[in-house]
């Protein structure tokens, strides 16, 4: 019997990740070991496990990894597009993000240990209204963190939901 498609579980996982990452206060969850991203991976696997159970098929680590990792990747891509779009939209509206960031840093100071790159990003925002360096760095960081923690969520999800059927103890 063919297994159910994984696109819907991946999108559900990605949606959970992006909702948690975008809503103020709720996004603090990601400050705890990227718990929001892990939760998204688990949510996708939970949905897929329901589909598999209905079809009488077992959940595997491979399923969990694909759903978790891809949920992370899709949510990272959506987040990068959203952030880039928002920055460009604010530029069109003539909102000077550089001066806003400058104000924040002059009020609270540049975080400990950061200087060169942070200053460069602020400078770019001040000059051009957006920072290509910030977009590249953020994209790279999201591109690593979200798929990696999504993958961990997928693996943990399989460990959670397949325990009853898990008869393989060693290979």
């Amino acid at each position, binding site marked *: 019997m063919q297994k159910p498609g994984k696109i819907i579980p991946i999108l559900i996982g990605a949606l959970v990740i992006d909702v948690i990452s975008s809503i103020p206060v709720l996004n*603090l969850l990601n400050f*705890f070991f990227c718990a929001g991203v892990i939760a998204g991976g688990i949510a996708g696997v939970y949905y897929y496990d329901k589909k598999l159970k209905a079809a009488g098929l077992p959940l595997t680590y491979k399923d969990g990894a694909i759903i978790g990792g891809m949920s992370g990747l899709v949510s990272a891509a959506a987040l990068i597009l959203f952030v880039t779009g928002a920055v460009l939209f604010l530029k069109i509206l003539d909102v000077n993000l550089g001066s806003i960031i400058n104000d924040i840093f002059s009020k609270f100071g540049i975080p400990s240990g*950061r200087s060169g790159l942070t200053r460069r990003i602020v400078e770019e925002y001040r000059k051009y209204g957006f920072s290509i360096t910030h977009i590249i760095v953020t994209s790279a960081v999201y591109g690593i963190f979200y798929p990696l923690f999504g993958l961990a969520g997928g693996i*943990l999800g399989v460990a959670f939901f397949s325990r009853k059927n898990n008869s393989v103890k060693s290979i």
Partner: protein
Amino acid sequence: MDKNKQEIKPYQKAVYSVILVITLLWSAGILAAPLWAGEPGIRGGISDLLYMFYSKSCHQLESRSLTIAGHIFGVCSRCTSIYAGFLLITMIYPFIKKLNNFSLPPLWVLLTGAGIIALDVFLDAVGVYSNTYLSREITGAFLGLVLPFYIIPGSIMLINEFFTPPKIIPQKEDNAKTG
């Protein structure tokens, strides 16, 4: 055959080694960020990148972070404990559990680890008590110490599934056609 006497396969060692290397690099970055902070040239740039990298998974508040060389670690004290616990167990994992043993600890162990952190954060947030460096480090370390027992066997099982051809089970319809 006794599973402890079963041979550990090369792919199991390879998966474990990859997890160990990633964990070592991840932990080294947490220390490299403050040690290279403020230095001119490439080291200072790498330090900046590392702080930005870890900022996606940690608040990096100075009041809740350990410091070295006058700068905060790449992550807060709780996250440092999680990663340190994870690194410690990953390093000694083959000595406490065979890589070909895929049995997982009970689920309540992991949930307890996450639960006590949530409780520590919640009680502090509502003002019942103020958590300390010690409470944050102990609760963080507990979770870090248990996580590898789920992640390592899970990852080895994952690679095994990717490279093992699926079992072909003849379906009833096929049987009916051929029969």
